[in-house]
């Protein structure tokens, strides 16, 4: 009966205040009681940010990420922008060596800039009951300000939906070239009992949307790890030792598994660890040391292999790391493309090898379930382009 209340609580839960925050608030109250001039909210705000900013600043001073070059403007592309696997180079490195080399490179490189920027394009192919596949794309930018005098921003744009491949396009034309689609999800039997229905529907439209921006400073989102969003504090706590990082993530995974009553997939016991390390490498504004630790931890995982060189849709060539993900009712494969020169992750995807017989949406072999093209990552002096209508008066900061 109280399910929805506890769901709200769970969704909105934040960590309790640190001792420093409790002490600072108390001091502020006593200060007010003293009858002295109250410090303005602005002054307090920047004082707080100075304290918080130290971590980011410290990270920034040592950060290694390099801007990835050759970023073309995002154009509408079909399902053909998969990396093309080219001939393996002679005397190629093992997956482990590639990852260890990437660790050394990201650890050593230098960077400087106003914001830590992660700009990605994500594509997901989805099966329709009509028998063809569509591809849904988003652009997402995170601009995390190093200095307290700037705001941090998230910018998302729906890049629209289109048939996934030329063959799908033909099927789509035969179906009368609809500009919106209904995706029907099967709800697994166990859950169906709980929610009281066997399917749920989702409508997607072909039209792209406008960029939407929101401030990350308050209640900011710095990325996602295991089952929840990561706070700036947590990012600063992430261990920069590969074994400790693995232990930290394992603890979170175990905790999550306990809370959902799920068990490890025996067919692929390291899969979740691989996925989470991938997130640290490609998705979080961590220090170079933590990123290097994630590469080293990944190198230590059984099951990681390499597949020569590949080129992404922006024409960037890198070394392809693959990780198999078999499970009782199907098999997927995770792919990660790493720049040979800089060690930076360029692109990642999850592909269907054997369709999941229990999948909630139609699947086919070779389908990209989800891909992330990393267009830009690292520190930059550029400024985010915030749509004028979303830069309210209270946002005119700095």
């Amino acid at each position, binding site marked *: 009966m109280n*399910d*929805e*209340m506890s*769901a*709200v*609580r769970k*969704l*909105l*839960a*934040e*960590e*309790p*205040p640190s001792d420093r*925050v*409790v002490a600072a*608030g*108390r001091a*502020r*109250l*006593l200060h*007010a*009681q003293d009858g002295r001039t109250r410090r303005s*909210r602005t002054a307090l705000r920047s004082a*707080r940010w100075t304290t*918080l900013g130290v971590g980011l600043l410290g990270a920034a001073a040592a950060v290694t990420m390099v801007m990835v070059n050759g970023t073309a403007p995002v154009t509408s592309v079909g399902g053909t922008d998969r990396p093309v696997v080219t001939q393996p180079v002679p005397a190629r490195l093992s997956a482990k060596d590639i990852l260890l080399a990437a660790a050394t490179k990201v650890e050593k490189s230098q960077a400087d800039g106003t914001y830590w920027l992660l700009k990605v394009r*994500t594509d997901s192919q989805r099966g329709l009951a009509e028998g063809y596949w569509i591809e849904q794309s988003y652009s997402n930018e995170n601009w995390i300000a190093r200095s307290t005098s700037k705001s941090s921003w*998230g910018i998302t744009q729906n890049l629209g939906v289109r048939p996934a491949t030329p063959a799908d396009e033909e099927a789509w034309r035969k179906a009368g070239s609809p500009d919106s689609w209904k995706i029907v999800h099967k709800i*697994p039997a166990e859950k169906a009992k709980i*929610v*009281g*229905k066997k399917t749920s529907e989702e409508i997607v439209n072909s039209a792209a949307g406008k960029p939407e921006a*929101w401030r*990350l*400073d*308050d*209640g*900011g*989102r710095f990325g*996602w790890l295991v*089952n929840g*969003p990561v*706070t*700036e504090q947590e990012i600063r706590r992430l261990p920069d030792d590969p074994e400790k990082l693995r232990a930290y993530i394992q603890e979170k995974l175990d905790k*999550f*598994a306990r809370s959902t009553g*799920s*068990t*490890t*997939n025996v067919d692929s016991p390291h*899969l*979740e660890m691989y*996925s989470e390390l991938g997130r640290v490498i490609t998705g979080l504004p961590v220090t170079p040391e933590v990123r290097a630790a994630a590469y080293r931890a990944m190198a230590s995982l059984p099951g990681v292999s390499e597949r020569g060189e590949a080129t992404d849709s922006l024409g960037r060539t890198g070394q392809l790391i693959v990780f198999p*993900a078999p*499970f009782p009712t199907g098999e997927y494969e995770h792919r990660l493309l790493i720049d040979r020169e800089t060690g930076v992750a360029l692109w990642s995807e*999850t592909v269907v090898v054997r369709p999941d017989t229990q*999948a909630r949406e139609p699947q086919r072999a070779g389908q990209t*379930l*989800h891909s*992330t093209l990393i267009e830009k990552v690292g520190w930059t002096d550029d400024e985010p382009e915030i749509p004028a209508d979303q830069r309210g008066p*209270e946002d005119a900061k700095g």
Partner: protein
Amino acid sequence: MTAPPEVADPARWVDDAALIEQSRADPDRFASIYDRHFHAIYRYIAGRLGAQAADDLSAETFVTAFGKRERFDPARGAVRPWLFGIATNLVAQHRRDEIRRYRAMERVPAEHVHHDHDDAIDARVAAAGRQGELARELARLSRGDRDVLLLVALGDLSYEEVAQAMGIPFGTVGSRLNRVRKKLRLALGGS
């Protein structure tokens, strides 16, 4: 509602209203109000606006309350709802940030929707999808409905306390909450 630990020893327990009364002559007494209620206020504001805004606004709640202590009227309710009322007014000044927070939560899980390769992740995806729906619904609620909901869900206030905090009739609290809960159940895929 959790009873403050001091209540175990009634002789030492000074109730909130008495503290406020004493603080009129001796401002330092107000610090006890802070110590008793800061965590609860923080939790409420952090849930609505995020931890960083809560660092600032939770402290601001007590500074504001201190400034208004002369006007606190025990006849109109207890200290706790009074503090939550002040906190709610502060949160209202940041409504855009609050909506952005929910909208961000709504988007985050998109990354995971097609990542389901085993049961654990499947459960996580389902949870993430439902959370997205929930966040979307939170962003859509009217201000009054959201205040009532979150005073109960995050602040652990009783209907009576919500009525005091918001200065609305007791019956209104119940009807608003029923309406909101129905919406949330639908968002969560129930009926």
